[in-house]
């Protein structure tokens, strides 16, 4: 009976992981739509006024934040709750910085909304930013929760899911950056 329960728990956690990966795969589809619409309407045109270095800085920040999140996950895998919380907070901090850069860039209005490039630029990156905000919310929830829920080597699924999500949205943001600033 005990053995069966353990088997059930193992199967359940495998199901959660598989299901969450499926969810992230499904979330690729909206971005495929956005990228397709941009291609349909605008080809590979990039507005000359776009600030590639500012965008590059944002993308770099996102990669750093991803790295923090992933390393926080490996910390909890080694039962190091303090390091995990610490790195998670760093990931959140860098993520906030990323959002600040995006807001700064948009406030500059270097790309007019009324152009074909502009409308695709703002919709796609806006959707990407929405995913980032959602991800930040989840990361904060995990950071708050990590103390109360006693995450440890055997119990870190929530943190893992949040990290995967953060990696997913970070990668889409970086792909969107390459697609809209360079290609």
């Amino acid at each position, binding site marked *: 009976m005990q053995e069966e329960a353990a088997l059930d728990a193992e*199967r359940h956690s495998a199901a959660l992981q598989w299901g969450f990966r499926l969810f992230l795969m*499904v979330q690729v589809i*909206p971005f*495929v*739509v956005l990228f397709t619409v941009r291609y349909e309407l605008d080809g590979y045109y990039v507005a000359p006024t776009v600030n590639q270095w500012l965008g590059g800085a944002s993308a770099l920040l996102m990669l750093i934040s991803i790295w923090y999140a992933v390393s926080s996950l490996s910390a909890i895998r080694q039962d190091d709750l303090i390091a995990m919380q610490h790195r998670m907070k760093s990931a959140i901090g860098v993520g906030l910085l990323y959002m600040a850069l995006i807001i700064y860039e948009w406030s500059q209005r270097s790309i007019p909304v009324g152009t074909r490039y502009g409308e695709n630029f703002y919709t796609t990156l806006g959707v990407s930013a929405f995913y980032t905000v959602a991800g930040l919310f989840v990361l904060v929830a995990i950071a708050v929760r990590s103390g*109360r829920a006693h995450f440890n080597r055997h119990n870190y699924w929530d943190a893992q899911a949040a990290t995967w999500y953060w990696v997913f949205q970070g990668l889409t943001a970086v792909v969107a950056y390459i697609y809209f600033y360079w290609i």
Partner: protein
Amino acid sequence: MAQNVVATNTHKVRVMPPMLRGFLWAGIAFLLLNSITAAIRPDVGHPFFTEVSITIGWVGAVIGWLLGVGAYEGMVLPLFGVTPRVGEATDWRRYFAFATDHKVVGIQYLTSSGCAFILAGGIAMTMRIELASSTMYFFHYSDQYLSAVGVHGAIMMFSVATVALVGGLGNYMVPLMIGAKTSVFSKLSGLGQWLIPAGVLTLAFSPILGYWTTGWRGYEPLGSQDASGIIFYYLGVAALTMSSVIVSLNLVVTIVFNRAPGVTWARLPMFVWGILTVSILNLIWLPEIQMTFILQLLDRLVPLNLFNAAGSVLTQLELFWLFGHPEVYIVVVPAFALWNEIIPVMAQKSLFARSWAVIGLIFVMMLSGLVWAHHMFTNMRNSEMFPFSFFTEMISIPTGFAFMAAIGTLWKSRYRLTTPGLLILMSIFNFLHGGVTGVFLADPPVNLQVHDTMFVVAHFHYTIIGGMVFSWIAAMYYWLPKMSGRMYNEFWGKFLSIWIFIAFNTAFSTMFLVGLEGMNRWVPTYPPYLHPLNLIISIAAWTLGVGFVLHAVHIVWAWKKGPRAPENPWNGHTLEWLTSSPPPQHNFDVTPEVIDGFYNYGDDADPIVANLSELKPKQT
């Protein structure tokens, strides 16, 4: 492990009824977000309610509604590591609040879908009142009629046709049929259910923002030119499709991981195969249409020029039908599966060519993404007509496998013409009409004549009402003893089935003729020469509507007051019949161990589960 919230029985906590609290929180959130948006808008002198503020307020309202009905205690507090004060109710109240038991969620979904079906059906009745005469006499303005068309179509598509068999019967039956004690993401399905009332109400009340005229497809650039009601169309559909995405995710993972030992892919019940394929379709295509509608919403609110004369009109059409055609198969694939689920049981005969039936489902799923542009033969370059008519004609081959399996099973059987058995035959009969007329529509020259006429309207109502709704009602009767432990009245069940069969076929076969005679869609008035046939359709449609309501009344009556049903009234072999009716909270006391397929009948058929004696429900 996701821990379920357990009711604290130690002390009584007074709580507001969850749905009431949902409405209250939704109202507060709407006003709050609307006010904030109105306050930070830079231009002075704008009205308090604008399209932007209503959109943002609506998002808040839906979140408030979901939290209010119980997601606050069920999902948000646990996410932050707080144990809520109250848990899920265990009595009748659980049907009116956020729930995690897949059976409760299934019944909630069926109720939501059933109510939406009656509501949108009622709207169709007003359309048929109008069309009983060739001039306007019921609606005052044609945009009211066109709004009715749009609301009817959108509610039927996104909260009935897509939902009833997947969210409703799928949630209830799939875990039982695969011998699982629970679904994997039980909270997500619980959440998804409550998006249905939110979406249906949004759509139903969309005309208060202004009559919109695009119909359920929301074609641009008409959409961006329409009255503001169309934003509630985009938002309502977003809520409803989100519900289906969530449910599909849960069901796919449940089917992959929670099968009982021995329920191999080769033994998976037909209905579960149907739900699996349709869930994959949902997961691929619903996010696609959601993003398209978000783009259309932004196109209108900002405004952008994505899909008007300055952008690309055809891009929106392509994006819509990329989803739109798989949607058709999202609707009927579970119905195909139900035919071959119910026929062997009613015939007490082994399912014929099971593997071909499954292959059919899978190939329909795969091909359905390759045929979308046959909705656009009036819009395409000549060179594009060849491949799309080719794939469209080819998709009838795997569709035919469902017929083949059904026919092979019926041959030389002893088929019990019970109400579900009868309805399944009717469903095959009706869907055949839809399929055969689909062959005409796949031929571009014919299509160029009958496209956008009542011929097409009749064609897709044959597939959706005739195929899916008839199967849905059949499945409701078939599983009624399972879900309620009670039996319906055989006379009334058959009588009402024959009633809707005759009314349905009269109404919609006449509609083919009206279309061939040159009546186009989306019109409240038409040239007088079309009047006699339209009058026939209206009368038959009204009869059909009454028939559906009577079916609903009969099913609800049987559910509450019907005679007690035996444990396994049809002698079905699938696992759901091995537990008590209605099933206990965790479905099976002992996990069944399956050792043979579910569709083998005959005196020399092998036993299906190894531990039958342990499983037998204890009589109380």
